[in-house]
């Protein structure tokens, strides 16, 4: 029996909705079968909490007297982009604080950057804003140096072009002579460790592999508040190879998400430093998936052991686009502490926090049960496996010197 969004929301309103987390749904489907589970359960909640590059914040700091139009701006000495308007800024998660030695002495430590500024804004800390401008008749001021606080900003919006990767690589280092420092963490030589980065069975897009319910306009948990999906994420790649259960066997779908930072909690938006790589932002995202029918019940019962991730060499294979995956591992194996590769037991570590993903799914469940979170039908679905849309690499073309 199929259900509609309206019916589920009506149940939320009446306090009769049945919500389980994606972990709990596994048992429900095992016991009652997909048809029984679809009958019983209305909503399945998911969560993920990992470093999500391609994140940033838009802020409007208000007009000074006299007025100023930004040429260059810094937030706590982190460069922010001002080429949007007079007093709108965009600060990106991976922007490093000015004057950082970067990788001059490799590996650099990268103590501070855009991700940290975003976390501090949400935490309600004062942030120093510096602006220089060339000055115009309408915006005559040329310099500004002041403290700002999120409470005083007109808008402060988290606007992330790519979050929530549906599956991801397992990173290893096959080189014989050097440890490497990557966005996937420190990777020790000779397959010394393997790092993965997904909440697996709890991750939003693993539970809706063909994007039947998560689309443009979907309300989500974002950074401790309610946010929205506004577009497919950059590098959205729905046509990759999939397993029989529909789950992609590597990085695939992504989401663009947006939300009001004034309502967020710094626990769920954390600036991070990746040794030898740079800075980024760890973001908590969760989706509530309506169990419209048996098929959705089946999708949301996906288990760690049924999701595989490609094992990729980051010493050569990834940076130089050489060769394919060295093999595959499923998330149950990855979470067990080690995987076998080349006849060797390789210890596993991760960048995405499973306990925090679990907490997000539980919070979302609680919000829905208390009638504080309603489901939204996407205004448009994301391109899916049948879209023909594939991820393109850059094709470089020779640049001829200009003829004068």
């Amino acid at each position: 029996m199929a259900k509609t969004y309206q019916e589920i929301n009506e149940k939320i309103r009446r306090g009769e909705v049945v919500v389980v987390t994606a972990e709990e749904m596994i048992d429900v489907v095992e016991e009652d079968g997909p048809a029984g589970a679809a009958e019983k359960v209305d909503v399945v909640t998911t969560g993920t909490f990992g470093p999500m590059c391609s994140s940033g914040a838009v802020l409007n700091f208000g007009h000074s007297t006299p007025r100023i139009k930004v040429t260059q701006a810094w937030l706590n000495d982190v460069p922010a982009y001002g080429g949007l308007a007079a007093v709108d800024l965009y600060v990106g998660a991976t922007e490093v604080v000015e004057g950082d030695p970067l990788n001059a002495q490799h590996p650099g430590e990268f103590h501070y950057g855009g991700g940290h500024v975003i976390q501090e804004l949400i935490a309600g800390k004062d942030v120093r804003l510096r602006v220089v401008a060339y000055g115009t008749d309408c915006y005559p001021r040329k310099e500004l140096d002041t403290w700002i606080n999120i409470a005083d900003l007109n808008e402060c919006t988290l606007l992330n072009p790519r979050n929530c990767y549906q599956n991801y690589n397992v990173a290893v280092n096959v080189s014989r002579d050097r440890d490497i420092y990557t966005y996937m963490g420190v990777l020790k030589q000779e397959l010394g460790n393997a790092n993965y980065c997904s909440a697996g069975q709890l991750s939003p897009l693993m539970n809706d592999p063909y994007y039947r319910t998560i689309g443009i306009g979907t309300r989500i948990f974002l950074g401790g508040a309610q946010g929205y999906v506004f577009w497919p994420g950059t590098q959205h790649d729905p046509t990759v190879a999939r397993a029989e259960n529909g789950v992609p066997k590597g990085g695939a779908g992504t989401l663009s998400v947006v939300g009001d930072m004034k309502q967020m909690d710094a626990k769920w938006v954390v600036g991070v430093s990746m040794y030898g790589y740079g800075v980024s932002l760890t973001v908590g995202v969760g989706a509530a998936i309506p169990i419209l029918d048996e098929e959705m019940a089946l999708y949301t019962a996906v288990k760690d052991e049924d999701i595989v991730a490609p094992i990729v060499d980051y010493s050569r294979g990834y940076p130089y686009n050489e060769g394919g995956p060295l093999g595959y591992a499923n998330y149950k194996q990855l979470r067990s502490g080690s995987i076998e590769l080349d006849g060797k037991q390789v210890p596993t570590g991760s960048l995405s926090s499973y306990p925090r993903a679990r907490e997000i799914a539980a919070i979302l469940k609680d919000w829905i049960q208390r009638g504080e979170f309603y489901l939204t039908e996407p205004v448009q679905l994301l391109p899916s496996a049948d879209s023909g849309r594939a991820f393109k690499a850059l094709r470089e073309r020779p640049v001829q010197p200009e003829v004068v």
Partner: protein
Amino acid sequence: MASRRVVFRYPRHLIDVPVVSHLARNYDLEFNILRANITPQSEGVMVVGLEGSEENLRQGLAWARDQGVAVQPLERDVVRDEDKCTHCGACITICPTQALYRIAETQEVLFDSDRCIACELCVPACPPRAMQVKF
């Protein structure tokens, strides 16, 4: 009398040499093994509290170095800021003594300071910088 906390790191081939008891016998040092960890894949590591005369301490540690043991004074501790830790798990394969380890059931990452040898490898490898050096 003087006392000192030191970290001994032995290469694999020295693991069977009774360095500490030799120090006690030949240099008249009292010892107290605070933490020890010898894993098959890695080197052996031991944190030892030593007590004896200044001269015996100096000579004893020089002897241990001659045997090929890396000797380092332990002056600082590494602590974890529990509020900052996100239980991501980026540290567990970095820590040589399994002082940082994951609980299978909850997937939480625990820190056992008794097993920590303050090598500081986890400090820059922890993305939210929850692992910190305490002077």
